[in-house]
């Protein structure tokens, strides 16, 4: 019984806390990825490139955080790309064709996205339509509506201010999009961890029957989750419009893939009930860094697609393997 005993125990506890930390494996993956990309390309680990990564990450990252809530609640949203495109198209048409002022147009666009999200949520909560199906339908409906609105031509938006809010740089260095990304992570993280609604999302995804019996407003949770996802997709569409200075119906193709992929790489269980915003954030960084690195290395764009898909498969296998290990 030496005097050091408590210290030793604390050290051990810290070590076991680190070892059992869910995101540890992911952090290791990030470090390995960064190390190898830095070695492979001298351009990769520079401040400007890292900020560019964050800026690009914002487009799907914001959606990914909301997607994490959706998947934790046991649902899925594959309509996010089309929602982003519709939001962008509506913005272009409202501002350029209808002469609506920018703030009003943004409010209208986001309100209509909220309505769409509420609709899929209500379909799920009250009519039992699986979100996989309803958002698959929305995937086509929303994209089609965007194309109808714009006849598939970009609507140029000539607003300096809007451009600044969307793709400007703070102090001429930090992209505002990166700040939005950070804000989104903080907001969704706060919702998930610190609010009654956030914890209810986990409960509903963890066992919907028990959630019902425990007096959670299960329907409200499902609707809210889909609404948040649609809003996030709409914001991604607005950001994209700002960067392109146009309302565009062809943007954000494959957005759902990157968002879902980041969520899954981040350790979110597709069966619901489990997942963290921190993990998703790491997933976002992994995907964004990987895409950026492949461009820097001049990887064939078709091969890039193969890598993207393969990463998701590997992530799922790792998740399943890990959950089996903890059950045993």
């Amino acid at each position, binding site marked *: 019984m030496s005097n050091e005993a408590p210290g030793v125990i604390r050290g051990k506890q810290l070590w076991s806390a680190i070892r059992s930390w869910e995101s540890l494996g992911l952090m290791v993956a990030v470090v390995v990825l960064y190390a190898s990309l830095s070695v492979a390309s001298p351009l990769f680990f520079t401040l400007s490139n890292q900020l560019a990564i964050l800026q690009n990450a914002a487009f799907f990252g914001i959606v990914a955080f909301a997607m994490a809530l959706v998947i934790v609640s046991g649902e899925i949203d594959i309509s996010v790309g089309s929602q982003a495109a519709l939001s962008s198209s509506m913005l272009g048409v409202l501002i350029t064709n209808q002469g609506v002022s920018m703030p009003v147009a943004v409010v209208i666009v986001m309100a209509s996205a909220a309505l769409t999200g509420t609709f899929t949520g209500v379909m799920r909560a009250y009519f039992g339509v699986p979100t996989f199906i309803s958002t698959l339908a929305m995937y086509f409906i929303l994209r089609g509506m965007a194309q109808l609105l714009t006849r598939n031509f970009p609507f140029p938006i000539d607003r300096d201010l809007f451009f600044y809010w969307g793709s400007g740089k703070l102090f001429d260095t930090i992209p505002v999009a990166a700040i939005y990304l950070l804000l989104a992570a903080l907001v969704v993280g706060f919702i998930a961890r*610190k*609010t*009654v609604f956030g*914890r209810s999302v986990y*409960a509903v995804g*963890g*066992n919907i029957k028990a959630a*019902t019996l*425990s*007096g959670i407003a299960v329907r409200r949770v499902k609707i809210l989750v889909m609404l948040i996802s649609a809003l996030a997709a709409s914001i991604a569409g607005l950001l994209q419009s700002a960067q392109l200075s146009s309302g565009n119906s062809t943007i954000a193709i494959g957005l759902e893939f990157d968002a879902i992929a980041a969520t899954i790489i981040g350790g979110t269980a597709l069966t619901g009930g489990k997942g963290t915003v921190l993990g998703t954030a790491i997933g976002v960084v992994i995907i964004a860094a990987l895409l950026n690195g492949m461009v820097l290395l001049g990887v064939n764009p078709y091969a890039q697609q193969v890598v993207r898909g393969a990463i998701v498969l590997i992530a799922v296998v790792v998740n399943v393997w890990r959950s089996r290990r903890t059950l045993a």
Partner: protein
Amino acid sequence: MSDLVLSCKSVTKSFGPVIALRDVDFDLHRGEVRALLGKNGAGKSTLVNLISGAFKPDSGSIELDGQKVVWSGPSAAQAGGIAVVHQEFSLVPGLSVAENITLGRWPQNLGVIDIARVREIAHSSLEQLGVEISLSAEAQSLSSAEQQLVEIAKALVGNPRVLILDEPTSALDSREVETLLGLIRRLASTGISVIYVSHRMKEIPLVADTLTILRDGEEISTQDVAAVSSEQVASLISGQPEKSARVIAPRPRSGRVVLEARGISYAGRLNNASFSLEAGEVLGLGGLLGSGRTELLQSIVGMLRGSTGTVLLNGEEIQRRSPRKMLNLGLGYTPEDRKGWGIFPVLGLDENILVSARGRVLPKFRRSLYRERRIVADSIGSLHIQASSPQQEIGTISGGNQQKAVIGRALAANLQILLLDEPTRGVDLEAKAQLYDVIRGLANEGISIIFVSSELEEIPEVCDRALILRNGHVHEEVKGWEASPEKILALAMKQEDVHE
């Protein structure tokens, strides 16, 4: 009763420290129907599982036709001539009757199912059973009685020597039961030996030749059905009351009704059930499996769509009931099916305890971490929940501790009325005693509790009053201190009046 078909010789099986079956001998003759009786946990299913190859005995042996057998698994036992019809239906809803009967052994040519053979096998199996069901009907279109018959027909494929039926009548109405019992007798007359597991006393003399009673893993009695009365059987099943068993002291009734159910009916499972619960009492619900105890509670909390009748809380009728609404009104239900309806397996113990409290005793929007931590600590302390940390995933802690957490969840929400459905199921003795104390303590604080238990010894120990349900109707009321297990069991198994 000449030739011995199945013979278990002093089989013993234990799970960890728990001995589920101890030195049980069990002989079954050709064409004999043997009723296997006992309470939950008496060892019936363990014995069935040993005979049917799901478990291997720790010691002792099983002989079939005089040959010692050691099954490698259920399919080996099935091939060897032992067929089991489990209580839960195992039909594939979208497949036809013929496909279901031959499920798992579809005759095929180069991977193509030989439909003619499938129908032929299914037809002869149904014929052996003596029923007519369309071979091409989808299983989901059948009534539960027909489904049960298809299950049995499925078991008859491969000409088993021994047919084990586990609660085959639990989903059937009385006419269907009669038909089924007749069919079982007929099968027995063709030489098949039947092990009939059931809780329904009145079926036993109609179907069985002999009966075996298990209690606490031991064989208590095996004799001819004709030689015993159902009262004798009931007392053999429940056992003598233990000397140490505590019996609740009589308490004055408060007389203030907090919850009243009037004429609750539901899909033939509840028939005009009525009762009232008074402030600060523990009210037991006794009855056999399928007597409607769970359904009655579920109807009150609004889980059963289409149940009729009136529920009054403090004299006020509550319409459009839902678990959420009832919780908001101070009434909570803890489910019997802990895994399916109780716990959130991937969430921590703390989250499991807090879900109902949030938005009720805790703030609606923002979490109050400090108060949450205190509630969790109180709950873990007062219920003696064992876990490595409050954050431990509840799916990884023991069943008894999970059960306590589910009760802790209701307590954390500060409810005035608790409906506890089998709260002590799967809980060890020490934890049970702790739960009894918690329940009595709550009642003394003025909380009103309904307590459902299949373990009848619990009722005199915990309940001020007990109601007996039969066929979804509340029949008798017994004072808690007079509610001996034998008395409750006898009432629960009482034959129904014919005119019903």
